[in-house]
């Protein structure tokens, strides 16, 4: 890290439940190679202990510190100050959109987590089932004893960036649909009914902003499009009274 120093004004969204929101300004001397979360923690530590925000791991694994920085969704723990402002510049920090604000920068993600559960998204999965770029033939069943964290860290950035999630409170949203594509469909036929619905994958308007802001390379937009293909195949199979692939997969798992 360089010894360079920048003077940056943090404009921080403040909101107490039941009151109108406003912005508080904090002028900080920072190293531009520090992260946005470092600045916010310093504001909390030395300026205002009432500032409320979520954070945990500091290395983009927990997904807790998602915020909007200058209007764009970022994981504040891996967003360099240098990348979002300049010396003498301002930086506006706001909570994620489309989630109820608990206070200041902290949002309530309870309903989102319930929806992830409803589509049977697995935060941890056998390494052989991980959807990472891999030559399939190099993986053998013995690797099933190992598990890895799922790519999706449930940070909610994609839900905040999606314009449809902003106008339709019932829309499942990119992360939930990606979760269904990734692991849900192979585990429960009910998931098909959930995603192939008015508020499911047909509500997506192909904006691709979910993929643009995803810090974990889940590529929710591609997964939603893939899910559409899967749903269409299932519908055609049902039309000809053939068992759906989901049913076949579940039967296979039972064996």
């Amino acid at each position, binding site marked *: 890290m360089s010894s360079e120093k920048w003077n940056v004004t943090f404009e921080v969204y403040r909101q107490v439940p039941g009151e109108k929101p406003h912005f508080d300004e904090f002028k900080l001397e920072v190293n531009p190679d520090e992260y946005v979360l470092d600045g916010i923690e310093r504001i909390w530590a030395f300026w205002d202990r009432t500032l409320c925000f979520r954070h945990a791991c500091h290395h983009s694994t927990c997904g807790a510190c998602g915020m909007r920085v200058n209007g764009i969704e970022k994981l504040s723990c891996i967003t360099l100050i240098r990348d979002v402002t300049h010396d003498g510049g301002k930086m506006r920090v706001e909570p994620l959109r489309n989630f*109820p604000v608990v206070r200041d920068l902290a949002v309530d993600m309870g309903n989102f987590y319930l929806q992830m559960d409803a589509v049977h998204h697995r935060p941890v999965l056998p390494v052989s089932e991980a959807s990472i770029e891999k030559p399939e033939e190099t993986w053998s069943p013995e690797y099933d004893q190992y598990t890895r964290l799922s790519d999706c860290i449930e940070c909610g950035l994609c839900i905040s960036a999606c314009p449809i999630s*902003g106008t*339709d409170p019932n829309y499942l949203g990119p992360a939930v649909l990606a979760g269904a594509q990734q692991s849900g469909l192979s585990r429960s036929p009910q998931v098909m009914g959930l995603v192939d619905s008015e508020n499911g994958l047909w509500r997506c308007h*192909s904006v*691709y902003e979910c993929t*643009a802001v995803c810090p974990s390379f889940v590529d929710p937009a591609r997964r939603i*499009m893939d899910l559409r293909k899967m749903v269409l195949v299932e519908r055609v199979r049902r039309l000809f009274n053939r068992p759906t692939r989901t049913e076949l997969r579940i039967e296979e798992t039972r064996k």
Partner: protein
Amino acid sequence: MSDIYNTPSRRRFLQWFNPLGRKEGSWGFSLNRITALGLTLYLYMHLVVLGLLARGPDAYDNFLALIHNPVFIFGEVLVVAAGFIHGLNGLRIALTSFGIAVPQQRSMLIVLMVIAGIASLIFAIRMFTA
């Protein structure tokens, strides 16, 4: 824990028209909404103009004389441009919606919008010089 400032609401549709700071997909989304509204408005205006036919040839001829000025021609160029943008972007969305060329959606948008721009320019030159 209700929060009227941050929760999803149909009243937040104005966000659809603000792609500033966002990636190409958001610009394509906003363009499609704007051109759709413009084309819908034009459709109704077109129906009103056709209604002039019912008032006889004089009313229609007077209207035709009125629209032969640069402001109206510019309006017609906008309609043509909206048609190209909406149609070509719609093609991209139709393809990617079923999993075709999803990784290429960004470059596809740029190429199609360049085509829409060139086609609109050709039409504009022809319409203003006719």
